[in-house]
């Protein structure tokens, strides 16, 4: 057994090629128990680790393969994995030794040989590997077979056509029926990766195979369970019962200690629910998923983070999963910031009249912490809570005023921004606090906050006695202000004039602003809006009043969740990077395979109606910002996610229409679908009706506040080559 501690740290020193060569040569003469060679090889491996190029030692190192020590063999193999690719003209030196190992009586040695060979993806090696691999895929030892299964993907990645020509994919498919569960799960992992390639074979499951895999599930290692669960999404249920029966067998995996098994099982269940008919079964499954999702929060912080980002999606689609659990999402003082921010969003989503008091008390607590992003988001959440839960609005306002009193430089602007929305949500209710807000005019530096305050002054100019003075003060910096603020000032000035057209001061003020906006500013939006107001006021001031003070669409949060179809699609990526960024992987990862719900007679009608079919679009962020016609409102709307990709770059031909999304793909299917007819489906998978709401955009709850939203850092928008190519 082990237990003795290594003493290898001393080898971590930069060395010279020549020295190592001499040492290796010296070792050939007199090397009892191969100790000397072992030491030199350790030094070499340490130098590879440190990034020193050791490849000139190729011929010297491969000489060591003659020694019978396994430890030495493994180090030489590591060397070959690092440099073999760059030595196509010398690699033939080691092939005989590899081939000998491939036929060793010891299964561990056979597996090691093919595993290492397949890590050197150059034609010479792959060529001689092919025959061996074919044998190993049928080896009597399961360890060799499970290793061979992964070798197939390696070969496929390097030379897809060679792999196909050799019939490896068919052999892999046979391994799915192997008696050994570890072999089955590796074969599944390999086939899944090949199936996700754009040039790969299509990998789908029929009911028989899916059931076979489920049988192997219980016997697989935890990782194998993940591979098997993951590929169950390739099975499309044709009948409700099929989906329900499968879910029953997957549900027990929710009790597994490995969080990745749990999250992947959740993904499968969420997927299968789209194909179920029985409301009760769906409710039962949702109820079952709740506690395990919460338990994920007792894992390490990294897994907690993954879980939280996923829970945020899940509760939007299946609110029944975590209805009464808001408390478990309360932040601990020493949670890492990424965990706190993710929890905050979930707290907001789970807030309801019954728990609003507790949630508000927590949010207030957070608003006094030190991390600026967290504090700001907490303040925003208080405001959003006021809008979402009417009975809590009074206490939210009180809390916000309390926070404004602290005069903390980053708290006040946040509070003002949300209060603006609260005014709109509850007209005529809270205007009494305006004087308090006005005391903090000078504290507002940030454009968004300043614009919000200006909006308030303009909108309620009839209730603020000295509105003209306030506005005049704010106008001091007009010409230097950002457009967002300038637009707000312009509109506010016009509103003021509409309210108080008798006052000379007001007349003068509005005239001044209109003149600036139309004559001294370069921004076309501002100029256009200036002209429009000017003409309106000139032609018919009464109508101008009706227009600028028109009734605004009500603000609600009934529906501040993602579009249902987009959610369905995104949840197919539960547990993956896509679910963390809340983006479909094909939109930010090059060559990533997109997913879509596949239509079948069992698919519930609503899911079908909102289904977003797969368009095999190559990695292009679909964000297109066109500085639009018409004045933008004070905040910029993000493009909403049902990604109808608008590709302005027309230099590229549109992607070919995929044949994959149709369930009746012919020819290359690995496994034919079962022909089953299905009963009627009635959709009772209803969602609460959604009010049309200007705020119900994408990652809704926090409107345009995306500062802390986890994002993949894309390279410059214009360049198609993202960082990938720059980096290495």
């Amino acid at each position, binding site marked *: *057994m082990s237990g003795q*501690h*290594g003493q290898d740290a001393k080898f*971590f020193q930069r060395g010279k090629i020549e020295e190592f060569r001499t040492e290796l040569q010296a070792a050939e003469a007199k090397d009892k*128990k191969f100790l000397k060679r072992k030491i030199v090889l*350790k030094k070499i*491996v*340490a130098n590879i680790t*440190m*990034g020193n190029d050791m490849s000139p030692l190729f011929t010297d190192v491969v000489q060591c393969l003659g020694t019978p*020590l*396994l*430890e030495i063999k493994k*180090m030489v193999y590591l060397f070959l994995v690092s440099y073999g690719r760059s030595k196509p003209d010398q690699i033939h030196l080691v092939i005989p030794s590899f081939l000998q190992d491939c036929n060793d*009586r*010891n*299964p*561990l*040695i056979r597996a090691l040989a093919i595993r290492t060979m397949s*890590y050197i993806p150059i034609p010479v090696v792959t060529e001689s590997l092919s025959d061996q691999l074919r044998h190993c895929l049928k080896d009597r*030892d*399961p*360890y*060799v077979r499970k290793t061979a299964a*992964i070798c197939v993907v390696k070969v496929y*990645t390097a030379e897809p056509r060679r792999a196909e020509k050799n019939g490896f994919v068919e052999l892999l498919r046979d391994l799915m029926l192997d008696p*050994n*569960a*570890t072999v089955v799960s*590796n074969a599944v992992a390999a086939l899944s990766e090949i199936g996700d390639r754009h040039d790969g074979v299509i990998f789908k499951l029929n009911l028989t195979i899916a059931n076979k895999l489920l049988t192997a599930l*219980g016997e697989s*290692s*935890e*990782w194998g369970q993940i591979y098997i669960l*993951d590929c169950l999404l390739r099975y499309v249920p044709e009948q409700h019962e099929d989906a329900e029966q499968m879910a029953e067998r997957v549900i*027990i995996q929710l009790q*597994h*200690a490995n969080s*990745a098994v749990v999250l992947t099982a959740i993904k499968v269940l969420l997927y299968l629910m789209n194909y179920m008919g029985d409301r009760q079964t769906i409710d039962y499954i949702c109820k079952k998923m709740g506690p395990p999702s919460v*338990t994920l929060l*007792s894992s390490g912080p*990294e897994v907690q*983070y993954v*879980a939280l980002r996923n829970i945020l999606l899940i509760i939007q689609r299946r609110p029944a999963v975590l209805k009464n659990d808001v408390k*478990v999402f*309360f932040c601990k003082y020493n949670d890492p910031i990424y965990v706190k921010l993710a929890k905050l969003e979930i707290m907001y989503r789970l807030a309801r009249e019954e728990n609003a008091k507790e949630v508000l008390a927590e949010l207030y607590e957070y608003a006094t*912490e030190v991390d600026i992003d967290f504090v700001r988001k907490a303040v925003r959440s208080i405001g959003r809570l006021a809008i979402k839960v009417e009975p809590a609005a009074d206490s939210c306002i009180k809390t916000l005023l309390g926070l404004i009193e*602290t005069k*903390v430089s980053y708290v006040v602007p946040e509070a003002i921004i949300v209060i603006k929305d609260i005014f709109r949500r509850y007209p005529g209710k809270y205007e009494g606090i305006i004087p308090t807000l006005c005391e903090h005019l000078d504290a507002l530096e940030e454009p968004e906050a300043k614009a919000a305050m200006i909006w308030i002054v303009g909108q309620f100019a009839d209730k603020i006695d000295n509105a003209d003075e306030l506005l005049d003060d704010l106008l001091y910096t007009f010409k230097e202000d950002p457009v967002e603020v300038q637009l707000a000032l312009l509109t506010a000035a016009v509103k003021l004039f509409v309210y108080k057209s008798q006052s000379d001061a007001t007349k003068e003020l509005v005239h001044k602003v209109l003149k600036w906006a139309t004559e001294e500013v370069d921004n076309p939006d501002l100029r256009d809006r200036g002209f429009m107001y000017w003409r309106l006021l000139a032609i018919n001031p009464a109508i101008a009043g009706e227009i600028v003070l028109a009734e605004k669409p009500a603000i609600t949060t009934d529906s501040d969740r993602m579009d249902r179809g987009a959610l369905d699609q995104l949840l197919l*990526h539960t547990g*993956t990077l896509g679910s963390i*960024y809340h983006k479909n*992987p094909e939109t930010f*990862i*090059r*060559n*990533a395979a997109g997913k879509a719900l596949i239509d079948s007679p069992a698919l519930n009608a609503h899911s079908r109606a909102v289904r977003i079919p797969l368009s095999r679009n190559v990695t292009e962020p679909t964000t297109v910002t066109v500085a639009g016609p018409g004045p933008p409102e004070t905040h910029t709307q993000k493009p909403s996610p049902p990604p109808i990709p608008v590709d302005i770059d027309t230099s590229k031909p549109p992607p070919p229409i995929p044949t994959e999304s149709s369930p009746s793909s012919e020819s290359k299917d690995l496994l034919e679908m079962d022909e089953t007819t299905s009963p009627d489906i009635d959709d009772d998978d209803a969602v609460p009706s959604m009010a049309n709401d200007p705020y119900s955009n994408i990652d809704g709850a926090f409107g345009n506040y995306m500062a802390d939203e*986890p994002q*993949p850092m894309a390279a410059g928008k214009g360049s198609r080559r993202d960082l990938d190519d*720059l980096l290495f």
Partner: protein
Amino acid sequence: MISAFFIFNQKGEVLISRLYRTDFKRSIADVFRIQVVSNSDVRSPIITLGSTSFFHVRVNNLYVVAVTKNNANAALVFEFCYRFISIAKSYFGKVDEESVKNNFVLIYELIDEINDFGYPQNSEIDTLKTYITTESIVSSAIAVEESSKITSQATGTTSWRRADVKYKKNEAFVDVVETVNLSMSAKGTVLRADVDGHIQMRAYLSGTPECKFGLNDKLVIDKGGGGGGGGGGGDAVELDDCRFHQCVRLNEFDSTRTISFIPPDGEFELMKYRSTSNVKLPLRIIPTVTEVGTTQVTYIVTVKANFNNKLSATSVVLRIPTPLNTTTVDCKVPNGKAKYVPAENVVVWKIPRLQGGQEITFGATADLTSTTHRQVWARPPIDVDFQVLMFTASGLIVRFLKVFEKSSYHSIKWVRYLTKASGTYQIRF
């Protein structure tokens, strides 16, 4: 899947570098060093640049890093990093820069074995130790039979256990360890109190023992005993959720809620559970903190041990926050030691032992420097760490552990209980 695996030290030097795929060169490590190691404000364990994502877990000033270029299963990647850390711990005791450097060749061997082309493979420590060792093995000398045994174990249905385990004395130790999470408001109301428990087992049992494990689980007891071992009475606990080691048969748990398994040899975590109902809080903290003008803060903090007076809490540490502009703190404690730690803005009060039912009070006055712009003091919560032996906050008890083996040997079982808090027991004031 995982394309590359690295270990970095705190300076960003590479200690281990393994590329599983050819889509990266080693220089990808530099990107991580720039983006994460040298970045003082890392706000996520995952960083995605273009199509490349870096996942990192920190352990003792090391960064364990996995890099991917696809839409990787993030939970799997982190679980793999965690697993690597626990394997390393089991192999060489601790995971830090020194031990990684001292065992780097072994680590390369391990990560070649537990991950193939980015796909995690068998990572059961017990099995790994049968063929990845630090001993010099002559490759031709490994008996083929021995190897076949290893391979069938590594791929088999009980991949976590060797068949030929023998002990003179058959023993099993069960440790029930509970961590209490508490968040209490300044008014003394419990905002959140729950228990994260895990059951750690050390099994030194010969052969292939079949174990059955029974708790005072409310669902089992309500059903009527569930396998014998005495009636539960009214002290059953309600578990919100349980998660089990790979060895536990989940289908049996699902249908009858019995916990049955063939244990790995030696130490492993049998199950984790969560409980939120009727949590017994072992320590009650009553703080009174008063700001006297702008120059002083006075503290009176009382700790009450709320459990049977035969038991005692040990290693009790209270961390009581002080304002940032504190100059000195004058503390009076009847028991233990209290010390102001300016670097962390807290007074640390250490109480070596606290008997059940005991109540002690801490008094202190903090003097503050006058600052020109006085910012409001955020008042972070008081944090309490402690351990109480033979006590479970959830009320969970082990009712039985039965061991069946074909040689029907006699086995001895031991059970211990421990309730603790570390960084999770927080009282606002």
